């Protein structure tokens, strides 16, 4: 069975003052119908660039898709025309952004903004689109939707705005819904509500969801499979349970051990951390990009870039895992 969305060996570069920098280095991942793929990693690891590439929203220049393919139902999105991409964007693939406070246009009512998304992809009248927008607001759990549709974004709370963003994104029943840290800016109680909503939407519409996050809790709650990213590469690709229970890559293991434990005795231990920071992309040398922060390095890690290969349980890009040292 071919995947609904398949990213294969995607390479994205940016022109910067340090020269051409590789933001994504042969990234591969896929998501099937009705499935949720979690993409995790620290800030700057390429999660959002992967999402924006899929949406065709990488600013070019300075960005450039230097290789690979993004296939939606077999159609390579890196090669389609601008107008074809526009009709897919917001239609078959939609995206929810991280910042609900600033992602809505302040000078239009939320009803108008949802109706616009509907009218861009469906041949309906403005009145019908506004009616649909109100129904969608109702669907995403906004009380008295017919009144709220006439509100401007500044009149709504952050959680409400993210619900509006979700209503807008799902207005055309997308096949793939990309959620880029949809709850980062929200209160914890609201986070849970938003995740519940995404689950419901997936059940109703059968959309595949790509959930980008650095919150391992969200992964355990939402994701079927997980791609762990580090410095522009996918370094581990497995089911959510596999990653959470037996991570192979030292970085993935670090991420899991960073999840704070609650309950008795939890306070006595210092919270685990991964030493160091993600190296700047223009300073990546030969070998494994995690070598400076890893406790399992040997000479091979400094010279040879590990490939994403299945050494046992699931694919992982680590020499130590391959050699059984992990």
């Amino acid at each position: 069975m071919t995947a609904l969305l398949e990213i294969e060996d995607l390479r994205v570069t940016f022109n910067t003052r340090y020269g051409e920098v590789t933001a994504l280095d042969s990234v591969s991942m896929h998501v099937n119908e009705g499935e949720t793929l979690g993409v995790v990693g620290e800030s700057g690891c390429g999660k959002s660039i992967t999402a924006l590439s899929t949406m065709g929203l990488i600013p070019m220049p300075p960005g450039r898709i230097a290789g690979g393919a993004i296939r939606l139902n077999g159609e390579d999105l890196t090669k389609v025309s601008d107008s074809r991409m526009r009709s897919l964007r917001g239609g078959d693939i939609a995206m929810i952004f991280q910042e609900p406070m600033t992602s809505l246009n302040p000078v239009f009512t939320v009803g108008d903004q949802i109706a616009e998304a509907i009218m861009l992809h469906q041949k309906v009248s403005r009145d019908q689109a506004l009616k649909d927008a109100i129904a969608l607001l109702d669907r995403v759990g906004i009380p008295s939707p017919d009144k709220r549709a006439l509100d401007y974004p500044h009149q709504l709370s952050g959680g409400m705005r993210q619900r509006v963003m979700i209503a807008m994104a799902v207005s055309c029943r997308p096949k793939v819904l990309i959620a880029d840290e949809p709850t980062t800016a929200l209160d914890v109680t609201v986070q849970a509500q938003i995740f519940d909503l995404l689950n419901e939407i997936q059940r109703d519409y059968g959309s595949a969801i790509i959930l980008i996050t650095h919150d391992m809790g969200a992964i355990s709650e939402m994701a079927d499979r997980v791609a762990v990213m580090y410095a522009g590469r996918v370094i581990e690709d497995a089911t959510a349970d596999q990653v959470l229970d037996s991570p192979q890559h030292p970085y993935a293991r670090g991420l899991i051990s960073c999840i704070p434990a609650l309950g008795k005795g939890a306070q006595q231990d210092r919270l685990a951390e991964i030493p160091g920071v993600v190296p700047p992309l223009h300073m990546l040398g030969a070998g494994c990009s995690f070598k400076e922060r890893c406790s399992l390095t040997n000479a091979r890690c400094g010279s040879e870039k590990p490939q994403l290969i299945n050494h046992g349980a699931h694919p992982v890009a680590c020499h130590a895992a391959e050699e059984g040292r992990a």
Partner: protein
Amino acid sequence: MNASYLMKRLGYGLLLMLGVVVLNFLLIRLAPGDPAVVIAGEMGGATEEMLESIREEYGLNKPVLTQLGIYVGNILQGNLGESFFFNQPVSKLIGERIFPTILLVLSALITAIVLGVFFGVLASRKPNGVLSAAVAVFSSIGYAVPVFWTGIMLIILFASVFPIFPVEGMMSVKLRDANIFIRSLDVLHHLVLPAFTLSVIYLAQYARLSRASMLEVLGSDYIRTARAKGASERTVLFKHALRNAALPILTVAGLQFGSLISGALLVETVFNWPGMGTLAFESILRRDYPTIMGVLLIASGIVVVANLLTDMSYRIADPRLRGES
């Protein structure tokens, strides 16, 4: 928009106008010499009876506060005094001249905003492109060149090299008996050069301002959202971005209305446009104080009204400002 806010703004406007009236009044009292002589102007031939009638009308023999009261009372009745040079009531003089000035100022303003914003938006699409550079150069030139110089250069160009636009006045004498449609076209034909001259500075500024404003807005998250919906580039630019980028442009346009009026004074003089600018110019040369005072008062009134309208439109354009006071 709530009514109490509107009333508050109107109240401020009226207070401001009162301030202008008092300053106007002091202007005459502070001028050296006998105010009656000042009001009559340097005509040399002001007879004693004439001076006496002026003293009578303005109450110059009475205490200063009473004089102010008389002056304000006269203005409230629409009596701006009598011009001794033009030998006409000032209100009638201004009444004849106000329409050409408003026509000139509004056409210059609209030209400047429409063309300036258009070029600014186009330039913002490619911040390092040729058009962006052209906008930068053109706006520096437009900003640096004095308006009377632009006017004179345009007169030279269109009087001798390409004589396609009239360079003087507002109507052709030979079309005086034509129908209203022909005469309107004639006025528009005369309007082209003065309006363009007056708009050059502002056009340059608006182009630059809207380019900067657009660049800022185009980097916002909601522009990315609009693109993510599948909106076309034109919709993104002219609907989503421009509506937001227009807010600072609107503010500046309102603030600059006063300087636009004073610019109109120069342009009217250069092109002999029969508006309030030429009237002010002539009355200043003749030291025709009642006329100067009248022009000052009406010009301030226009600026106050323009600022009020800007404020209102700002609240219409930006929903976040509604409901505040």
